[in-house]
């Protein structure tokens, strides 16, 4: 079992307080700048000392505040790739890897280093010092160096690894990966599990698709960048039909049944911008709100439309081209798209 339960007071205004298991495969730690991702990874690696808690790696205790166990970083076998360049500048790429493969006998060491250089397309740059490598090669070299030491857990701290590189790592090493990132797409593409970290606390954890589809709280929804967040009053609840009536400030909608709430309760409702549909003209479809277009923001693969009442809808470039001359806009909220937080 690999489990992290630690509390670390970093400053009077910020402390890290987390409790989560690390499963096999990749686990993403998603959070914005200052959420505590680096502190978390450094605590696991042994560079920072938590105030309390316990860290288990494959059932071995790395840290336990109660019994004063604090295994030094060199004996933790946690590969660590930091966001800053950490390749030793006075060594070539090969020497960097040889440094990490020190514990193997000479022939075995050179075999492993050569194999790792080859796997990460570094053979041609093996005799080059880090200052002669481009950013991608530096990253591959840092990861190859961490892997050649055969870590039991690989920690990647916003190092810039993309999905293909993470896949490559998993082909080379069976070690679980814990990577910190502020890229939500990368979480979806490469992670088996993800943690939402904000101000040192885990807001939610689970499979990336589940977390994205069902944010557990208002904070989680905000962190995930869900643009449509509204406060509503529950006007009616019908468990038989699995429906509810929600009164917003400027419109009312039919939503799913909300267990655990009573009529008259104030709740927060989230809706992803991609899940809403646009209509125009009459007759007006059910569960729609008549709105006015405020702004259209062009993205690489879509257009984000901002309407009155703070409603955001994402549409394709083609759809926006078809509808851009609309005079009256209606936004449909499918009941299954509404998430009550």
């Amino acid at each position, binding site marked *: 079992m690999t489990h992290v339960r630690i509390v670390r007071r970093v400053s009077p205004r910020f402390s890290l307080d987390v409790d989560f298991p690390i499963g096999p495969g990749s686990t993403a730690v998603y959070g914005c700048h200052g959420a505590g991702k680096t502190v978390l990874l*450094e605590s696991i*690696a*042994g*560079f920072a000392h938590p105030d309390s808690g316990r860290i288990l790696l494959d059932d071995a205790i790395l840290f336990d505040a109660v019994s004063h166990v604090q295994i*030094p*970083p*060199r*004996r*933790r*076998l*946690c*590969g*660590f790739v*930091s966001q*800053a*360049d*950490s*390749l*030793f*500048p*006075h060594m070539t790429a090969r020497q960097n890897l040889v*440094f*990490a493969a*020190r*514990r193997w006998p000479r022939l075995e060491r050179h075999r492993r280093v050569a194999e790792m250089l080859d796997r990460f397309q570094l053979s041609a740059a093996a005799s080059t010092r880090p*200052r002669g490598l481009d950013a991608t090669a530096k990253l591959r070299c*840092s990861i190859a*160096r*961490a892997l050649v*030491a055969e*870590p039991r857990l690989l920690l990647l701290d916003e190092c810039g690894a993309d999905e293909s590189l993470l896949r490559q790592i998993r082909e080379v090493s069976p070690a679980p990966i814990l990577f910190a990132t502020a890229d939500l797409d990368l979480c979806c593409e490469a992670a088996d599990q993800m943690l939402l970290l904000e101000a040192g606390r885990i807001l939610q954890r689970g499979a990336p698709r589940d977390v994205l589809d069902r944010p557990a709280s208002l904070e989680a929804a905000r962190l995930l960048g869900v643009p449509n967040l509204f406060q509503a009053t529950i006007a009616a609840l019908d468990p038989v039909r699995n429906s509810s009536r929600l009164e917003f400030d400027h419109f009312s909608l039919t939503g799913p049944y909300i267990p655990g709430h009573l009529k008259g309760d104030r709740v927060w409702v989230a809706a992803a911008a991609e899940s809403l549909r646009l209509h125009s003209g009459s007759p007006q479809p059910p569960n729609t709100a008549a709105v006015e277009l405020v702004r259209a923001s062009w993205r690489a693969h879509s257009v984000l439309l901002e309407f009155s009442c703070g409603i955001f809808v994402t549409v394709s470039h083609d759809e926006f081209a078809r509808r851009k001359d609309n005079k009256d806009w209606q936004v449909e909220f499918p009941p299954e798209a509404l998430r009550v937080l």
Partner: protein
Amino acid sequence: MPVDWFPLWLSLRVAFCATVISLVLGLWLAWVLARRSFPGREIIQAVATFPYALPPLIAGTYCILTLAHSEYTFTRSWYIGVLAGAVGVFPLMVRGSRRAFQTRNLNYENAARSLGASEWRVFWRIALLLAYEPILSAAAIAFARVLTEFAAVVLIVYAFTTGISPFPVALVSVIVIIALGAVYISNRLEHEGRDRP
């Protein structure tokens, strides 16, 4: 009249030995102060820096007295000069080395630790090799300072005891050139250390 080069050789020997002693001890203390957190660290730091507050006159006077009491047998009492010189430049070495260890990225050391390197290996293979320019720069300055201070003391004593006055210009010129060279090397090393990524 032929120049007696004995004061030069003696001063060089004293400066070299004092620099090596202060370098070894200063490096060790600088590493501990830069990387370890323990009660009393600030006090140790103050004690290590205290010789800065001592005027060179005190060390020089101590040397003169020691040399005078040893019946001018410089060859037997030169180690006193080494001790005085090492103590005098110790703060220079500690401060220079500590700054070098602190400014160099801790990132490299942590990367080495995560790769299974012991603290000894981290120090010799990573920290020292990344910070050697500022450390050698401080050592060069220390060498120049001990050399000129001790040479001045020796020349005064030598002049009094042998009656040769004024000081031989050639001897003084060589000492000044060597000291200038050490300062030049120190500046170059510091400059290179600053420019290195």
